[in-house]
């Protein structure tokens, strides 16, 4: 399966298992979603469980919160993460706080799916990575898969989870892994181990990171598309790096991070999102606090620049092989 099919399969599995799971969003019903993630679901489960909504993100999330309070398990879609901001009040002030402010009387078991990230010439409003806005909010979980297998297992876990979850889907790798070489032919998921996806139910627990490649020379912390970009760079450079796919940003798998950095003594953090106050800053602080005496070089962050996402200059902006390669040289400079 590609990632779209895996995500579709996760919703299919969950809708079959739990009559309270409903899917809603702009164009998700009859049409099956602008990325086809919900294709066939309305025909299979009916219009009362899979339906199109008006174009109002604050309405979509506000209504989902009310449905969650009733006892349903809504899976609303925001068409692009760039358009999640109108729903910010409902997510931050309501979904995230409902359990806390009602001391557990009311909850928001909602899973907000949203395609995110760049690398597709999406320009300013089809490329953003707003995860750092949500990792700053107590009460929500933030999940980002990097393979079809993980996407399905994590999405099932997110839907089953009783806390509100932001599920950001890296749309650059919907159809195949991407190593950052935009000028080479694109690959698809067939042949990639992450593309082997069981048709039935399985789950990958939230808050568990995955060691994508074991290594001794340095630790790379990444998620989404950047996992594949980092892997490509490492293989080309022949550096024995340990790549950790974080998968869940909050609550994060701190043990996996700590064990790796204490072993390697070096840490590089890579994300597409802009640098200042991005999630990389939190990761850097955590590593510094917990692994200080093991660090042999300053922690490196390779991120998007602190600018809006550009259109024509995308490949200068994107933290691709060139930029990661330079950071790699820097962090490995004193390695003997």
């Amino acid at each position: 399966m590609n990632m779209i099919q895996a995500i579709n399969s996760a919703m299919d599995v969950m809708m079959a298992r739990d009559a309270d799971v409903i899917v809603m969003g702009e164009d998700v019903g009859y049409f099956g979603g602008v990325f086809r993630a919900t294709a066939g679901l309305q025909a299979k489960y009916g219009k009362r469980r899979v339906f199109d909504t008006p174009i109002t993100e604050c309405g979509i999330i506000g209504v989902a919160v009310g449905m969650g309070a009733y006892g349903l398990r809504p899976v609303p879609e925001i068409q692009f993460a760039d358009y999640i901001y109108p729903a910010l009040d409902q997510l931050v002030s309501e979904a995230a706080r409902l359990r806390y402010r009602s001391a557990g009387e009311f909850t928001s078991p909602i899973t907000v799916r949203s395609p995110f990230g760049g690398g597709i010439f999406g320009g300013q409003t089809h490329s953003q990575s707003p995860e750092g806005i949500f990792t700053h909010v107590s009460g929500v979980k933030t999940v980002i898969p990097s393979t079809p297998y993980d996407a399905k297992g994590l999405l099932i876990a997110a839907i089953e989870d009783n806390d509100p979850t932001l599920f950001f889907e890296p749309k650059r790798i919907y159809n195949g892994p991407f190593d950052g070489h935009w000028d080479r032919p694109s690959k698809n998921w067939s042949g990639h181990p992450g593309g082997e996806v069981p048709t039935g139910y399985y789950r990958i627990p939230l808050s568990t990171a995955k060691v994508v490649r074991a290594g001794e020379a340095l630790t790379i912390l990444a998620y989404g598309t950047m996992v594949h970009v980092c892997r490509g760079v490492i293989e080309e450079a022949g550096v024995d790096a340990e790549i950790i796919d974080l998968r869940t940003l909050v609550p994060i798998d701190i043990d996996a991070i700590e064990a790796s950095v204490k072993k390697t003594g070096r840490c590089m953090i890579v994300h597409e999102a802009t640098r200042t106050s991005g999630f990389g800053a939190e990761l850097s602080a955590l590593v510094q606090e917990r692994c200080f005496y093991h660090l042999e070089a300053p922690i490196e962050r390779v991120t998007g620049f602190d600018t809006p996402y550009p259109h024509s200059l995308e490949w200068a902006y994107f933290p691709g092989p060139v930029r990661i390669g330079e950071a790699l040289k820097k962090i490995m400079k004193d390695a003997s």
Partner: protein
Amino acid sequence: MASDPRANLKPLSLHVPEPRFRPGDVVDFSDIAVPPAGAGRRPDSADNAATFTELAYGLVRVLDEEARAVGPWDPRLSPDVLRRMLRAMALTRAYDERMFRAQRQGKTSFYMKSTGEEAVAVAAAFALDRDDMCFPSYRQQGLLIARGWDMVDMMNQVYSNRGDRLEGKQLPIMYSTKAGSFFSISGNLATQYPQAVGWAMASAAKGDTRIAATWTGEGSTAEGDFHSACTFAAVYRAPVILNVVNNQWAISSFSGFAGAEATTFAARAIGYGIAGLRVDGNDALAVYAATAWAAERARTNAGPTLIEHFTYRAEGHSTSDDPTQYRSAGEPTAWPLGDPIARLKDHLIQLGEWDEARQAAMDLDLAEKVRAAQKEAEKNGVLGHGLHQPLDTLFEGVYEEMPWHLREQQQMMLDEEEASGRPWARK
């Protein structure tokens, strides 16, 4: 040289609304159009929303100047129900008085009264079923009182004391009770509007028979959530009652800043394809009748209703507000629709089912009941004076299960408290 083609135009001018009376002004509300009671028609609850224009610009009224119930909206309630309604309204007022004073005595940080608006909440509660879900704003405490919710429990919340079910996590008056079908109140305005619509959609999707009702002030209708809620409610014909409590004031801003100079709030419904009723909010029978009508409309799958309750916020916005700074002190008494409690009392007296002596005795009895409840609640402590929630509860309920980083912070806090020797009780 060509002449400027705009040279002869009058300059544009920005209109900034201004309330009619400011502090010191003599108030004259005689030009507010108050249609006679009983005048408006009562449509069938299944009627097409497009036929409601006249009702959305008019004013549904039942109680006339002689306190008689007249016209097609008279809900013909028994004297016993009327007395219970009167009692719940009077109890709401007595509760407000007591809690306002408790704030002034430093027993809590904050309070908000609903004085003058008791009918809006109490009469609606009487017209809804006990398990219809309410998504209130912060000024519908009358819903809880009319539903017979334990007043000690409400006070525990106001005091954030050891008995507070919300564990001291919420600002006073932000009640929440699932058992009372009263949704957790949020400080963020109008967010409950789409949530109520979503709850109603869920009820319909599951083939339930319960409906939802929500309340917001006229000021908050300017929020985007109001628009998205109305759109969703209309699109999916959600079984929901959308109440707009037009009490003329949003803190210091008069209703003109929410658009009232140009239209009514009930009229907003028409553009969405929602049935709109504008109701005398100080007439408990009109509020009851409109709510019962809307509930029937919702329960028969005929769709949502927006009800504007035309009323007046008789007192300050909150304990942090001084209305004499922005409006004339003469406004509350000059308000042409009078006081909701006095009007219902007069109606019962007119029916020969009540008298001033019984009213006085009831008021005394209610004041005593509130006082007793307060005494009981204060056994659990008041804000900041011992008997507060255990410290470690601060971290509970952020997530279903406490993640490692919150456990770590919780332990850090407990260790810091231990080291500081400060008097916070741990358990």
